[in-house]
């Protein structure tokens, strides 16, 4: 019957309008797998030309990439540590801190931060470790999340 077809089309149009109306509300409550990303980039801001052998006191320039996929604004802390080779650490390293970087990112935002430092003591097979922490409002403190590493020798 022709009036049944008209009814189906009308209901379909109403359902589409309902979906369009509800979308802005539904999009605010969509749950994603929250995660944060950290990566180390070379002096040119790309994944190459990493320093492997440096001299004591020689300036080292690197970029740290941070990506926020937590679904909300996030307060990050990156602690850069010099870990001697052979240290069997899987999480937070108990080692010398050479720099700390604080950063705020909106949900879905990412940033590359330039860092400059030098190492004063000659050492072989050092692990330059970039530990990523996020501020957790529930514990009113930073919590360890992830890390990135770079191996280098200082002569």
């Amino acid at each position, binding site marked *: 019957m022709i009036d049944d077809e008209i009814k189906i089309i009308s*209901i379909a149009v109403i359902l589409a309008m*309902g979906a369009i109306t*509800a979308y802005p*509300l539904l999009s605010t409550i969509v749950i994603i797998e929250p995660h944060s990303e950290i990566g180390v980039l070379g002096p040119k801001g790309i994944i190459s030309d990493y320093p492997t052998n440096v001299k004591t006191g020689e300036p080292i320039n690197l970029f740290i990439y941070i990506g926020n996929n937590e679904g909300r*604004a996030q307060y990050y802390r990156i602690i850069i540590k010099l870990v001697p080779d052979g240290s069997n650490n899987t999480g937070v390293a108990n080692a010398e801190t050479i720099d700390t970087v*604080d950063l*705020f990112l909106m949900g879905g935002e990412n940033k590359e931060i330039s860092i400059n430092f030098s190492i004063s003591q000659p050492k072989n097979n050092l692990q330059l470790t970039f530990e990523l922490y996020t501020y957790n409002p529930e514990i009113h403190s930073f919590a360890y999340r992830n890390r990135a590493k770079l191996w280098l020798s200082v002569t």
Partner: protein
Amino acid sequence: MAVSSDELVLQLGPLYEELNRAEKSGGNVAPIVVELNQCVTLIKLGGEENLRKASNLIALIRNKISLIQEAGISQTTYLYQKTGITLLILTVLGFIILIYGSRIYWTLWYRTKRNWVVES
């Protein structure tokens, strides 16, 4: 009174907690995130002048966050109300079509074609 960089860094955590609450209530916190990064830069640079600027900026951010939170709550309430009313109207419209659809269709059909003459 001079404020140390460590004291200012300690204020950023509670400030982020307030920002988090404002964001959850639907407020747009993007400008605050930019200002918080400015604070971090000023603290990192150090020096009395920069730390004083950072301290002033933190006070300014604290005031702004409460306003953003209030605006977020009213925006979210408006969005819920608008969506609810629109969905209610569409639902009623759907039922009207389901119940009276045929009658409306044939009434309109008859009204548009009642002056037609059938010729053989």
